[in-house]
Each structure stands twice: as C-alpha cells, then as structure tokens.
C-alpha cells in the first residue's frame, strides 16, 4: 500500500463531552487532492489540527508514509514533510514578506544553527524563500511588511510560508476564506499547480473551488465521517444530501 501517503485509524478527539472528531478512519492516496466538507462545527479544523500535530488525539492513530506520527508534536510533523496553512491568518506581521518565507525555509536548515554567520548569507535558503514567494504570487511584495498588505495578500503569504518549508503533503484550512474573487482565482490556479506535485488535503466552503480542484471528497458531520469518495459519488449520496443540506436548512 505504498501509494497511501497518510491514513488515520479510528481517530478521535474530544473536548470535555464534545466529540469534535469521532472515530474517523481515512486513507489519503499520494498526489490526489482531497477536500474535507461539512457544516460549521463538523470537526474539520480539529481533524487538520490532529493531522498536523497541533493537538493530540484522544484515541486512534495516524500514519504518514509507514511511520506512526500519532503522538508527534507539530514541529516534528512539519519536519517530516507535512505543511499546513491556517484558517486564521497566522504570520509574522512585523516582518517583511521575504523574512516570513525565509524563516519558514530556514526551519529546514541542515545541522545545527550558526550563531555568528548572518542569516541572509545562506543562499539556498534565500532562494527557497524567493521561490515560495513567486509561487504564491508575492514576489513584488518581497520587502513589504506583512501587516501592511491586504487581507487577501496575507492569505497568499500564509500559503507561501507553508510552501517555503518544502512539504510533500499540504494541509490547507480554508485557503480562500475572506478572499476577493480575483484573489480566489489566483489561489485556485495555485492549488491546481501544487496538485501536480503534492498531495493536498483542504477544507473549503467555496464549492466552485472544491469542484475545480478536488479529486476526492470527505464529508464530516458532528465529528463523524459521513461519506468519502469521488466527487460524483459524494454528490449522488443520499446520506450527504440529507445531512449536509439538512444542516444548511437550519440556518
């Protein structure tokens, strides 16, 4: 089963009595794009937080490329090649765009840190940061402070920082949240390009975007996995239509 890059077994996480993620068993195939769908509070972000090591599971296990990563902290998970972007912009606002990405790239520096050599003299890391800025479309903003940019650009930087660490598997928590139409198109284009070389797992409410990039869907409701499969399969599923649309009706 070497084409399975990531899998979860009976993964659970509860907060007090609330089962945020309840007994989720999922397999992610290499180089496909997965979209996790579900109404608010379905446990999508908690799932991503579990996969990235941000929070520890209450039960079950996670395997990444034949390695058990269930209890690894976020920094160790990141070092294995799982990158993530956050739903709420999570950047270094008073650093320049370049420094945001450079710091991300620097995390992959081999061996221990140097205490005396200037950080900017590591050419490979600078190049990695520049490449990430180029991919997320912020090359022009290289020397701009992150806090001085528009919200949409900060969202792009969020993705750029993730890319600068050179991950194999990308976990994207609502990459399009709060973006304008133009910016959304750019990011969807970027996701498509990334999909050629990476495995993507994304949470997204924008259905057009989901259908444009996703190969597989996973639908969650109340912490449970309701349905998985190809876009057509999930669309045809009665259970999904009832649960998902039912939940929507409540609004």
């Amino acid at each position, binding site marked *: 089963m070497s084409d399975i890059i990531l899998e979860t077994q009976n993964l659970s996480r509860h907060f007090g009595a609330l089962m945020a993620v309840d007994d989720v068993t999922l397999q992610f195939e290499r180089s496909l794009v997965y979209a996790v769908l579900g109404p608010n509070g379905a446990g999508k972000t908690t799932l991503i937080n579990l996969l990235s090591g941000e929070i520890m599971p209450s039960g079950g296990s996670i395997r990444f490329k034949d390695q058990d990563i269930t209890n690894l902290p976020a920094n160790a998970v990141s070092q294995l090649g799982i990158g993530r972007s956050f739903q709420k912009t999570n950047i270094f606002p008073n*650093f320049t765009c370049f420094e945001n990405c450079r710091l991300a790239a620097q995390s992959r520096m081999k061996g221990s840190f140097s205490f005396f*050599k200037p950080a900017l003299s590591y050419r490979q890391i600078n190049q990695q940061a520049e490449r990430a800025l180029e991919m997320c479309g912020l090359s022009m903003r290289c*020397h701009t402070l992150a806090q*001085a940019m528009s919200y949409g650009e900060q969202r792009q930087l969020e993705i750029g920082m993730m890319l600068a*660490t050179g991950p194999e598997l990308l976990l994207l928590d609502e990459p399009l949240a709060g973006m304008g139409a133009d910016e959304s198109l750019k990011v969807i284009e970027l996701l498509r390009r990334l999909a050629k070389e990476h495995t993507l797992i994304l949470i997204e409410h924008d259905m057009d975007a989901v259908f444009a990039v996703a190969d597989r869907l996973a639908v969650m409701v109340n912490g449970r996995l309701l349905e998985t499969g190809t876009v057509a399969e999930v669309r045809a599923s009665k259970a999904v239509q009832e649960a998902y649309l039912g939940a929507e009706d409540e609004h």
Partner: protein
Amino acid sequence: MYRISRPSLVILLVMAIGLALYPFVGESYYIRLMTKIMALGIFAMSLDLLIGFTGLISLGHAAFFGVASYVVAWYIVKAGVTNALFMLPTAVAVSGLCALVIGWLSIRTSGIYFIMITLAFAQMLHAFFKDQSYWGGTDGFNFYTKPNLAIGDTVLLDLGNKVTLYYVTFALMVATFVFLAVLLHSPFGRAIQGVKVNEGRMRAMGYNVRNLKLMSFVIAGMLAGVAGFIEATRTAYVNPEMMSWHASGNVMVMVILGGMGTLYGPILGALALTLLGDNISSLWDHWLLIMGAFVIAVVMFLPEGIAGLIEGVTQKFGKKPPPKEETEP
C-alpha cells in the same frame, strides 16, 4: 527584525568614544559609578535578549548575576585564588549551568506562570545563600584582595585598579553588544525573534521552540554572569540581596525604561536609573517615590523607552527617512 538605524549608530559611536575618554577627566567616584553602570548595562542587555527578543519575561534574572558574584567571592575567600583567568570562565559557566537547569524547567510554562516560576527559582537561590553559613549567610562576604588577570607570575591587569577595571568593563560591554547584535542577525537570532512574534507558527513550521527558548535563556544567563563578575570585583562585596527579586525587578525596569528590543536602550536605562538614584538618594529620604514617579512617567509618555525617543527624533531629522513600508522595525 533587529536593526540599528544609521543615526542611532552614530550616536552610539559618539557615546562609546565619550566613555573611552571619560577616565581622563572624570573624578574617581564617578569612574567607579560609571563602571557600575556599564556592568548593569551588560546585565540589562542580557535580560533584553529574553524580554525584548525572545518574548520570555523572566523575573528571576538576578539569580545568574548573583551566582557569578558568589563564584568570585568563593575563589578569593575560600580558595585563595585571585586570577580572573579562572574566575571569569567559572563564573560564566556556573551562571550558564544554573540557567540551563532553571530554564529547562521554566520554559515548559508561559505567560504569567513563566514570570512566577523564574521568580520562585531566584528566590530559592536567594534563600539558599542566605541560609548557608558556608556562603556567608545574610552578611555575604567582604574580601580585601581583588581579582587580577595574570599568566604565571606576571600580572597583566590589576582589576583592583579602578581605571583598569573601568576599561575592562567597557571592553566587555562593547563585546556583549557586538556579540548580541551579531547573534540577532544569525539564523538563531532570527528564529528567537520569530518565537517572540508568533510561537505557534514557528512550531508549525518545524522549529523546536522549546530548544530555542532554552538556548536563549542560557546565553542570557551567561551574560548576566559576566555582569555579576564585574560587580563583585568592583565592590569586593557580595550578599544574598544581589539575587533577590528587588534586583531582578530593578534590571527589568532598566530594560523597560531604556526600550525593550533595542539592545542599546537597556544600557541607557541602566544609566538613567543609576544616575537618578545616585543624585536624589542623598536629597530626600523618600527618594524612591521620585524614582517611582519617573518610571511611571517614562512608561506612560515614552512607551518605547528612551531608545524609542532617540529613534523617533533621529528619524524625524534624518535626511532621507526610508518609506515606512520598506523598513523593518
């Protein structure tokens, strides 16, 4: 990212030249006072590495300063060794070791708990030295021979001479400043500044945040040890109060007063606080009231400290202020 603007660099150079020439004109009393200020400047800079650059608010920093002082006292009183060639490295190593142990335990907490736990550890050390008669108890130690720097029987530097000590302290202060400035531009320095701004994201990007904090804590502890070595040498007197929470609070006030995260600001903070205390303490018994009012005034009207004021003024009068968007604060 840490960056010194060109105008402030010029001011710093002028100040350094002034300090280098001061012993030619200064009175004996003020040469000793300036030595104290520079030692406190090193101490305050070391705390700035934690507060201003790593985001670790330690309220027990005097522990490392005090422990180094006791190393000096131990060498002279208990071992009869006066050579600074042994003393300084041991003092710095012992401070670093204490910082490693205290830091290893403390950095598991954050926020208010980190402040409290560092305070508690410093108070424990304070109580230890206060209670042990071997360590001089409440009185500490007075010693009459001062350290010197010797190779074999040749004395290179007699630290009992106040001008010699002044210049040694000056050199150590400049070295500390340069060391920290270089450190802050290194990958490690950039990483700890990242930790201060957004610890969670650093972790998500693969950094071992705990290690970064611990390394910073140990480096700061060792530099505080350098300052403790100088102060013990200068006064030939150590006592447990050097590591009490008053001392830790005092150095924190210097950092805040001078400007956190500016590196040279804490030196100015040490200067302002010490000179002010020296001038008004003889005027009025309740001089601490004036001191308190001064600190409150600075914090209220100059939230970025004395260094912030300098940066603001130089930027206003600088010929070509770089466009705001392009500068790193």
